[in-house]
């Protein structure tokens, strides 16, 4: 696993789940200060040819609109390569944000890695 401490209160760990699917697990708070670091980690994955991504937000305590913007931007990039994104999230407040912004309709939101993987391919 490639683990990178990318900021004050954010960490992104990356590993392959299958030949075509990579997992990026984010830990911490994704806000206006830390989201550029998350963007950098996800962009790096795309540059390595990983276009099907599972993004784990299980250890994320908080996400704001800049964090959502990073996820939307990443989805746009992977779609250019016929890829897609599945999100793992169990935090009710974060799920609420996905719901009220309507993003729940464009991202698949799943309970765990197995469920995300099953729906991704």
């Amino acid at each position, binding site marked *: 696993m490639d683990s990178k401490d990318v900021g*004050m209160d954010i960490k992104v760990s990356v590993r392959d789940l299958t030949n075509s699917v990579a997992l990026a697990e984010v830990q911490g708070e994704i806000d*206006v*200060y830390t989201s550029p670091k998350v963007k950098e980690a996800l962009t790096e994955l795309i540059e390595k040819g990983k276009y099907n991504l599972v993004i784990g937000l299980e250890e994320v305590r908080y996400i*704001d*609109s800049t964090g*959502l913007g990073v996820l939307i931007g990443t989805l746009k990039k992977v779609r250019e390569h016929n890829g897609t994104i599945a999100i793992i999230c169990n935090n009710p*407040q974060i799920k*609420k944000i996905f719901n*009220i*912004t309507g993003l729940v309709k464009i991202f698949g939101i799943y309970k765990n890695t197995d469920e995300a993987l099953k729906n991704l391919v």
Partner: protein
Amino acid sequence: MIDQQGHFVLKVPGNPKYVGVVRLAISGLACRLDLTYEDVEDIKLAVAEACAKAITHGNGQEISIDCEISDDCLNLSVSDKGTGPQDDEDLGIFLIRSLMDEVNFHLLNGQGCRLSMKKYFGKKA
């Protein structure tokens, strides 16, 4: 539990690093008021969105967060020193409007903008 009226102002540098500090301070206050856990989380996100917007609009100049506890609500105003209106409807503003009970924008006579928002006690948005 804080059960009386009060007023204080936070002033922080116009740097995204400080948004987390404001979030922590405001959630510390909101936890001690007649608000649900969900209300506190809503307020944290709304004030952080307002701060991020103020920092951008104010071109990195100091921002201030005015916190007023009245009988029936927590009233938060985030002011910057930018020029022109800052009420363009982006995702951040959409979230603030969705999460708070009342939201208003004020132009401060050429000295910046203020975004005011209220969360009423004892009820959900």
